[in-house]
């Protein structure tokens, strides 16, 4: 395995870029980490960045200087991922910090989420775009309530891959049986969540064992290091293999050329000129006349490309409508059942009037019912409370003023998700996933 810095990784990729056709498989992987401070998450992220030499000597020098100023004996790598002064002053933690690193094989975007019990919403946010979730446990404590919570959130958000890191193996004498018992318990738990064969890796983030470099203290472990696994894991299910979904963002007009095109990002599927499509929710049929990328025609568009679509007939399509494959169109609904995570300090109640933001469409909606509350630590449902508070996960029902064209979240993460927004303040209140139970 070759390990090089993010910079060198790209230098190699440039050859591909210069040919204009750099099509490496799974060239970008988005991952989210979860685990509390005590599980060693900061140390793990610091270790990863340090061993991959993402951290430059000038940053290390700054860490050393601040560590000295704070009277510490040695440089504290956790300072690399330390919070902002504004957060310390206000006693809050901003949900997600993003880190970037790369090897010769892949580029990585890491969503680093603080994992205290009260921060379920942070993990929901980080997991919403992740293709892989990394969950840490302390080998001395094994699977605890938070581990179950994090795994359930990752499964709920349909993160395609889950990796368990059994950390602090050095503090349990690198004992194979300790690791095996924790892995087995975790596998049994996530099986109930519909996750088969989770990968688990014994590590010591502090010493670096099995993070980037293989451990010399655990001969009994034959599996990959964390980095090898991140490099080799197959990318998420191919979005271009699903039926085509194209939320219209903006109408591009050029009076000079009598041009009218619908700008958007293809969130799933493939579209070609000549394809039969349906425009929803207005349920009008049309045929694709042409597809342009940066103003130039192309004979095919595939997810997740941003393109502009021209239709054959003179339909007046607006922002918020969905162009979909005519033979595999989503349902058009005004009544929704969804699993939601409440994000805001302001509670949500039955009867609340909110804005519902779905793809590029914003509609008025009313909360009609709380079905039940979900305890993600025990995977049990509880009779619905009267209000939803921040970090609560629940099944709710909504009615929208005008219809939306939606898929089940299990089928499509982008046409199956929504936000609830408070109209007067504009604040984001709740994140929702349409359709079936966890």
């Amino acid at each position, binding site marked *: 395995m070759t390990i090089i810095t993010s910079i060198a990784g*790209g230098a190699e990729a440039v050859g591909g870029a210069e040919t204009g056709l750099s099509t*490496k498989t799974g060239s970008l992987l988005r991952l989210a980490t979860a685990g509390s401070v005590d599980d060693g998450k900061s140390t793990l992220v610091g270790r990863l960045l340090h061993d991959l030499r993402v951290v430059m000597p*000038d*940053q290390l020098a700054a860490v050393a200087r601040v560590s000295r100023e704070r009277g510490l004996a040695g440089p504290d790598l956790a300072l690399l991922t330390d919070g902002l002064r504004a957060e310390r002053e206000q006693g809050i933690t901003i949900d997600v910090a993003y880190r970037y690193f790369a090897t010769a094989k892949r580029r990585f975007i890491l969503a680093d989420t603080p994992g205290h019990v009260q921060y379920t919403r942070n993990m929901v946010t980080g997991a919403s775009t992740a293709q892989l979730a990394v969950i840490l446990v302390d080998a001395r404590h094994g699977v605890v309530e938070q581990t179950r919570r994090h795994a359930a959130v990752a499964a709920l958000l349909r993160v395609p891959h889950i990796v368990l890191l059994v950390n602090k193996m050095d503090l349990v004498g690198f004992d194979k049986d300790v690791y095996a018992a924790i892995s087995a318990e975790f596998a049994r738990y996530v099986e109930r969540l519909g996750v088969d064969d989770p990968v688990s890796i014994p590590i010591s983030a502090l010493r670096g064992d099995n993070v980037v470099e293989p451990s010399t203290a655990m001969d009994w472990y034959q599996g990959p290091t964390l980095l090898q696994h991140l490099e080799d894991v197959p990318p998420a299910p191919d979005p271009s293999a699903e039926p085509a979904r194209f939320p219209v963002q903006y109408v591009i007009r050029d009076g000079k050329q009598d041009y009218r095109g619908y700008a958007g990002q293809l969130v799933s599927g493939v579209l070609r000129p000549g394809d039969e499509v349906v425009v929803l929710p207005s349920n009008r049929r049309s045929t694709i006349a042409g597809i342009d990328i940066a103003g130039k025609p192309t004979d095919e568009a595939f997810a*997740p490309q*941003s393109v502009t679509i021209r239709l054959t007939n003179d339909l007046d399509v607006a922002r918020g409508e969905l162009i979909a494959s005519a033979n595999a169109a989503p349902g058009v609904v005004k009544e929704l059942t969804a699993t939601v995570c409440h994000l805001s300090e302001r509670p949500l109640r039955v009867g609340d009037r909110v804005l519902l933001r779905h793809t590029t469409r914003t509609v008025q909606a009313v909360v009609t019912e709380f079905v039940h509350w979900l305890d993600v630590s025990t995977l049990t449902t509880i009779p619905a409370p009267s209000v939803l508070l921040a970090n609560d996960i629940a099944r709710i029902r909504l009615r929208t003023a005008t219809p939306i064209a939606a898929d089940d979240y299990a089928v499509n993460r982008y046409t199956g998700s929504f936000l609830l927004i408070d109209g007067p303040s504009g604040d984001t209140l709740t994140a929702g996933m349409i359709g079936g139970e966890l």
Partner: protein
Amino acid sequence: MSTLEQFPETLAPASRGPRELSHLGVLEAEAVHVFREAVAEFERPVLLFSGGKDSIVMLHLAARAFAPAPVPFPVLHVDTGHNFPEVLSYRDMAVARAGVRLLTADVQAYIDDGRLQERADGTRNPLQTVPLLDAIRGHKFDAVFGGGRRDEEKARAKERVFSVRDEFGQWDPRRQRPELWALYNGKHKPGEHVRVFPLSNWTELDVWQYIGQQEIVLPSIYFAHRREVFRRDGMWLAPGDWGGPRDGEAVELRSVRYRTVGDMSCTGAVDSTARSVADVIAEIAASTLTERGASRADDRMSEAAMEDRKREGYF
């Protein structure tokens, strides 16, 4: 995609390769999506344009996002009065070619009429905030595109793609909204504005690779050239009207280039022989300094220098 034509129709969907975007393709699609979201959701967007490489890539992406129509917003340059002449002429050329309207906010005018005081160290970077916020208010801009990247600095790692600023232009961590999936919430009150960062997930290297791939022309000072420079605070600074060199600072002729382009008073050059994009990428690979650490005096002032300026409404 001519590669697809080589395969029977039935095989094409199964072969992932041809239908997979490179990481640059993924980042470009995301940035174009962000540009279009902001233009659709806001009344009066503007793009901050300094003539630096990140803002040049931004203008290039904006042109691609809205082609064949012109870029549907103006660009704003906060002019410190200490700009590199090469960058100013590049700016005028790029703006003319893109067919966009150029607005300027003039730091020198604020100093001349006493609204701002020249700093003792001669650095004008922190002075840009007031003219920037005045221009946003004066033109009633509600969305301001910036080229900030999360990999640049710790204070930026937690920045949103859509970042709400209050009526004083200030960034408040409590007001930052969770961003899930690709759903960006641009709601704001009158007088507030939203900073929009399409390059959030790009790294310095991605920007350079994209410049190479798209054959984007940059100001000449990004590549190695012979220039008179003098040493201050461990950086090579260019002499100029802004106040350098001081007594005892010896001027010498060296082969240098700039990694970032900002105000002459606080942007340092690095020793370099890199004459092409490929040379630059190879040189960055061997560097042991971050982009800002190598070339920005303003970020060396304190541990929280960037965070403080950001809260006050800086770019």
